[in-house]
């Protein structure tokens, strides 16, 4: 199946369906202004959408391929220059949920992001693409340019590493 070039509402539906997860994926990578970068990703996808094969899965793979490239660019850029963005509370992994946050049920992901930072880059990327982006193994392999077997191994090692994280071992009943 090939996505129609006349995108109008269809592309808007795709945006509404996938944009929140793309924002979460970029936020987990610590990208500055993930909402703005998400919009850049969709703007970059738009000219190519007529040539995508594979229906919604194909669109999803392309979107995360571009988002993945943006995160790589971001990490290279931040490695070269000092980080000079304003303080953003949501990105601060040292914080715990306030009573207010707990009361209104706001998502507090600082704990899990802190744990993910202990993983290797590829292991963390596999988990984010599998869990946040909701991609199957084959599409994760396409986005990362690796074989399915390699992705499977990375995923397995990531889960085993997380299992041994102090946050989890402390919670475990003795």
């Amino acid at each position: 199946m090939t996505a129609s070039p006349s995108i109008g509402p269809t592309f808007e539906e795709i945006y509404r369906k996938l944009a929140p997860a793309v924002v979460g994926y970029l936020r987990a990578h610590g990208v500055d202004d993930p909402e703005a970068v998400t919009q850049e990703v969709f703007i970059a996808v738009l000219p190519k959408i007529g040539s995508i094969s594979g229906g919604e899965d194909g669109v999803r793979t392309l979107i995360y391929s571009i988002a993945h490239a943006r995160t790589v660019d971001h990490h290279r850029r931040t490695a070269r220059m000092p980080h000079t963005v304003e303080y953003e509370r949501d990105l601060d992994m040292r914080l715990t949920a306030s009573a207010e946050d707990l009361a209104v049920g706001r998502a507090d992901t600082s704990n899990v992001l802190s744990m993910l930072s202990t993983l290797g880059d590829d292991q963390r990327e596999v988990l984010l693409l599998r869990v946040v982006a909701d991609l199957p193994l084959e599409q994760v392999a396409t986005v990362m340019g690796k074989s399915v077997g390699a992705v499977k191994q990375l995923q397995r090692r990531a889960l085993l590493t997380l299992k041994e994280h102090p946050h989890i071992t402390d919670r475990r009943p003795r």
Partner: protein
Amino acid sequence: MNVDDLFSDIDESTVDAVTPLLLELRRLADGPVPTPSAELAALLAKNVTSLESRRSRRQSRHPFRGHPTITALVAVGVLAVGVGTAAAVSPEFRSGTTDVITGVLNGTPANQHSSGHTGQSGPDSQGNSGGNSSDAPGRSHSPSPTHSAHPGKGNGSTHSRATNHPTPPAEASAN
């Protein structure tokens, strides 16, 4: 996504340990839809196409734009064809080209031959610049390439150019 999909080859204790963590991670994808920027909102609207596609079409109409190497190669090719045509049509052009090559090989600017700056005779200049002759030992003993290039021409100007070895500018000023 059902996180159980992740655990196809993971033991049960690991599954129990990391499932709450993965569910927490999954909540990252549950945020609000970001409000589209003006550009994206315009693209999401009907009957609006991205400028990017127009740019790529315009780029395709000018295939060499943005490829300086290709442009340079094309320019060199055009020059080569022009020079070849001129050489084929005009014997004088060939002669002049030979003079230029001879001048380059002798380390002498070609325009000095043609502008008549040949007041210094060969033996004088060689005598005044012994260091230079030692730098280029073959030059003073070997016959001029111009002679061998045009043995039967009998062109007086060519002959005079071949026998005169003008002094380089620095030496001329010293004399």
